[in-house]
């Protein structure tokens, strides 16, 4: 008898078993609920991985913000000007008397002033205390205009700074940097302590503890420029006494101020001055942030890999334990792709839960660490949104091999039989 085999075959091909996505999800939930210990183990592994992922990204963003602030605050806010070719000795003082007013009139200038180092050989400075032995030192002596004190970011910790009055009368007063003050044994300006600078008496009216744009001046003695000129004469560039203009600008204004400063000082002969604007820190900053980001990104991937390995290990063990269940599912009509879907849905769900928990932990860690360091925490919202998805993706990736292994389980295993020939 001839059978209509081809017709019957077509009839079978058109009918296939199927798995609703909702069933895959509900089966995954049921399995997770049925095995809470295993689920917790997987979730904890993923949560740790994702938490570190978010923490590292958050710390990278926070550190990036810190780098930007630090660069903007330190390097891009000063301009230095000096005369390019001083004339024959004795050279004329190259700057107009109203230099500070001219420069401060420029948009973007915060403060400006002139200073120079006095003498090629540092004058001997000694204390003059009644009834106590004098201490001798050779600190750097700086002649400075009033505006320089503000432009250099000097912060007076004791006493006061000299002002226009002292400048106009060439008053014999001085300021000490905190380091040289300690060296000379002067800890207070009460009682008007005085110094002998190159044989000239000078009253100490203040001690400064910071000189942000000239930190080396903490070891210097600063006099009003008029007083220095009266004692040692006008600055002699050939002797190394080069009057230099220091301009403090607002962040980002240094390049513009640098272009305009020479014209403001001498509109007739602007080219006789050298203007130095610090190299814009953009490239250096970018390099630093890129290095930081690269470092944290490497740590990110490492942490995700650890999370994925944890999922893989647990999934591997789980699938070995559930071989009979998968075989049974194959027996009742599940195809290989359905078994794959079950394994992926379960791993993705565990990864998602771990990712959500990890994202929360990561954000909390970043905020705590930033607060501890007095930084502003910076986390890209995308990071927080993507972290759970990254956890789910890590879960799927980690379960890839175990899931394929599960899909290849011979249905005969459900009968407790060896695999088919």
């Amino acid at each position, binding site marked *: 008898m001839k*059978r209509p*085999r081809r017709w*019957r*075959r077509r009839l*079978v*091909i058109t*009918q*296939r*078993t*199927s*798995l*609703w996505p*909702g*069933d895959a999800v509900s*089966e995954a939930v*049921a399995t997770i609920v*049925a*095995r809470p210990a295993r689920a917790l183990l997987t979730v904890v592994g993923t949560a740790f991985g994702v938490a570190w992922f978010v923490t590292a990204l958050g710390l990278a963003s926070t550190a990036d913000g810190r780098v930007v602030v630090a660069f903007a605050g330190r390097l891009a806010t000063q301009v230095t000007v000096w005369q390019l070719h001083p004339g024959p000795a004795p050279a004329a003082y190259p700057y107009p008397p109203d230099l500070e007013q001219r420069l401060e009139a420029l948009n973007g200038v915060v403060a400006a002033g002139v200073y120079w180092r006095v003498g090629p050989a540092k004058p001997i400075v000694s204390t003059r205390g009644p009834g106590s032995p004098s201490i001798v030192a050779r600190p750097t002596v700086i002649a400075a205009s009033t505006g320089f004190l503000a432009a250099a970011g000097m912060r007076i910790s004791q006493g006061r700074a000299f002002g226009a009055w002292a400048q106009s009368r060439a008053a014999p007063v001085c300021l000490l940097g905190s380091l040289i003050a300690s060296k000379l044994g002067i800890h207070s300006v009460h009682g008007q302590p005085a110094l002998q600078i190159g044989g000239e008496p000078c009253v100490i009216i203040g001690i400064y503890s910071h000189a942000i744009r000239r930190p080396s001046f903490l070891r210097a003695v600063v006099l009003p420029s008029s007083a220095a000129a009266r004692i040692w004469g006008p600055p002699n560039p050939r002797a190394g006494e080069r009057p230099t203009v220091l301009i403090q600008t607002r962040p980002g204004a240094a390049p513009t101020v640098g272009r305009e400063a020479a014209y403001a000082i001498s509109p007739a002969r602007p080219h006789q001055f050298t203007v130095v604007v610090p190299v814009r820190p953009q490239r250096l900053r970018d390099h630093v942030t890129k290095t930081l980001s690269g470092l944290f990104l490497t740590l990110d991937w490492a942490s995700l890999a650890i999370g994925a390995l944890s999922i893989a290990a647990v999934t591997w063990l789980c699938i070995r334990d559930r071989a*009979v*269940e998968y075989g*049974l*599912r*194959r*027996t*009742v*009509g*599940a*195809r*290989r792709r*359905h078994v794959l879907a079950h394994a992926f849905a379960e791993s993705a769900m565990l990864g998602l839960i771990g990712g959500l928990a990890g994202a929360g932990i990561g954000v909390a860690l970043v905020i705590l660490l930033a607060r501890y360091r007095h930084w502003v925490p910076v986390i890209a919202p995308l990071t927080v949104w993507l972290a759970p998805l990254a956890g789910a993706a890590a879960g799927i990736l980690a379960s890839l091999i175990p899931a394929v292994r599960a899909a290849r389980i*011979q*249905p*005969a295993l*459900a*009968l*407790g*039989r*060896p*695999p*088919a*020939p």
Partner: protein
Amino acid sequence: MTAKYPLIELRGISVRYPGAAATALDRIDLTLGHGELITLSGPAGSGKSTLIGVLALLLRPTSGSYLLNGLDTATLRDRECAWIRSRQIGCVLQRPHLLPARSVLDNVMLAVMYSGQARQCRRIAAFEALDLVGLAGEAHLMAGDLAPGEQQRVAIARAIAAAPNLLLCDDPTARLDDAAAAHVIRLLSGLRREGRTVLVATGDQLAAAYSSRVLAVGSMRQGITR
């Protein structure tokens, strides 16, 4: 109306497991009609479970042909075998293989999960199957909490939930006490009366009493005697 083809037709089926010296089944010829209750008897290791595996499309024979309802199963692909297993064949195994941490209803619904039916239809089918084995009242209990006899009845409900034509039972009473075994055999007999073909591989004499035919698998795996 009589069926055009016998439900099962085996011609010279042989099975040899990889690495095994002897064949598990050797040139088996067998024809089963619709609505029969057949007992497959034979000593342990005679190949009863292997034959069940072949009939359930879980094992591919090394040689020979297996026609199911006139369809040559050797030509079937994996997805076609899966569909036949889900709709036309029900299996009751020696162990019930239930998911112990899931409810009885979930376990039975597993059998129709891949049928493509709506969830509500599957739920109704599962309840009907449970009702048939007398466990509708225990549908929401955890499967692991049931007695062994009840677990085997749940396995039978799972096997018949998709209303298959062929029910293959591999020693379903092996782990049951006499009372539970008798209950299961009567249950299988009742299914036969509903028009299903039931093949029971067992050494239980009670099953033989309810059967329309008893087939003996030879200990030397040389064939089936009627």
